[in-house]
């Protein structure tokens, strides 16, 4: 337990210390909110879909959580390159404890970043339907964070080169974001796109957040279904992460 805690704390401390990085990481979400939110807002409204900002805020929060959690995979490559990983691998503790500490650390950092973006969306004019829904939305955010932090652990344990991570960002993280319906509504999509959105775990995260934060009717699949899918995917990804992590060779 102490081992899990200390490795978790390490991730959180490093996040809180990286002020410059935190500020830089606001860039992406701000751009989406600003450019798309205000740029596409009028079109969206004319199409009878209501406020685009309201619609998009959960998607942008989901994006922040996705990106931050996946970046914890970079941290692993970094640790491999600069050796700290080896320090944990020769310690007399189960690999599983190390993996859980790191993954929960990555997930926590993603939740912190999600919170920050949540605040930003509030400042930009996003208004959740009820204050009571906010804590529930955070549970969902935490779930999304664990799903992607575990995926990042699995990937970070498998690839060795820094270049590999670029591939992952371009061919996995960006598609996960764009296919999730973070920026467009799910009903009425072309069939192929609809099928792709359904295999994207982030779809359920964003959908669930919409259901909670902007009203029941706005969840395409329903919050309960979203949570169930995320839990199932989470179990699979955590297992995959633990398995890949146990196979790391120094």
């Amino acid at each position, binding site marked *: 337990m*102490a*081992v899990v*805690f*200390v*490795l978790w704390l*390490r991730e959180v*401390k*490093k996040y809180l*210390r*990286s002020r410059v990085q935190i500020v830089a990481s606001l860039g992406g979400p701000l751009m989406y909110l600003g450019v798309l939110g205000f740029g596409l807002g009028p079109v969206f409204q004319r199409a009878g879909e209501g406020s685009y900002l309201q619609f998009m805020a959960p998607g942008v929060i989901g994006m922040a959580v996705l990106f931050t959690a996946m970046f914890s995979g970079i941290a692993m490559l970094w*640790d491999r390159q*600069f*050796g*700290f*990983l*080896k*320090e*944990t*691998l*020769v*310690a*007399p*503790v189960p690999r599983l404890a190390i993996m859980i500490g790191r993954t929960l650390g990555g997930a926590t950092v993603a939740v912190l970043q999600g919170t920050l973006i949540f605040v930003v969306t509030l400042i930009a004019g996003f208004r959740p339907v009820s204050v009571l829904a906010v804590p529930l939305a955070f549970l969902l955010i935490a779930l999304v964070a664990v799903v992607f932090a575990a995926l990042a652990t699995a990937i970070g344990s498998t690839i060795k080169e820094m270049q590999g991570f670029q591939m992952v960002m371009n061919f996995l993280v960006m598609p996960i974001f764009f296919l999730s319906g973070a920026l467009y509504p799910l009903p009425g999509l072309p069939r192929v796109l609809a099928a792709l959105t359904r295999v994207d775990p982030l779809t359920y995260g964003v959908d669930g957040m919409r259901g909670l934060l902007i009203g029941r009717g706005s969840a395409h699949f329903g919050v309960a279904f979203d949570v169930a899918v995320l839990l199932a995917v989470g179990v699979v990804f955590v297992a995959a992460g633990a398995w890949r992590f146990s196979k790391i*060779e*120094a």
Partner: protein
Amino acid sequence: MSDRPILRVQHIAKSFGTVLAVNDVSFDVRPGEIFAFLGPNGAGKTTTIKMLTTLLRPTTGSLELDGLDVTMHPTEVRKRFGVVFQDPSLDSELTAWENMDIHGVLYHVARHARRARCEVLLRMFELYERRDDLVKTFSGGMKRRLEIARGLLHTPKVLFLDEPTLGLDPQSRNQMWTHVRNLRATEGVTVFLTTHYMDEADRVADRIAVIDHGRIVATGSSAELKQQTGTDSLEAAFLALTGTMIRDESATAADQMRQVARVWRR
């Protein structure tokens, strides 16, 4: 000194594909000894340390540390050694103290003992004043000293040092060896180190194993090696034993070719 060796290595070999990195290596290290692996780059020193520290499984042969089989009881073995790898393994985004503290937790050192021990070791390695600075602000010598301090935190029986002076300036190197020599008195720890600098092996080690192309070609004290080869310096002894002077960094690729060739010839 008791008679049972603290390290017992019998006929270990390790191959990576067609490269035979370690080839039938056997040696014993006695408790309290400073034992040096002396050999050029690519000789198999790091591979041997990785096997001894549970990071690699030997292809064949057996390794015992403090009477425990290394492959069978990795967790028990890990509690008993500290290691400083050839490549740094500190978290440079954390402070010296935080690096020490995490290590203490990973090795189950109780909180108050951890505090006390961190302080003693940081003082011993002249880092106490800098304990709250981020490691990325440290010089190479300071980082290496911090790694050694960290490796000793859980009071291991054996300390492995893989080329601890690599990349350090002469002054830091001297300082490093003074520290290492003092460890036996202050910590009573057995030290297994590797180096490709002969003068260092000569000055610091009780016994030296000369390793080349994955094989141990001779073992003994510096005096014994000289006597055995009828030479008057360790350099000359090394030349007599291996037929070459110690090669430097750039030799690794050539070594690899030679090793591949050797496997093919069999």
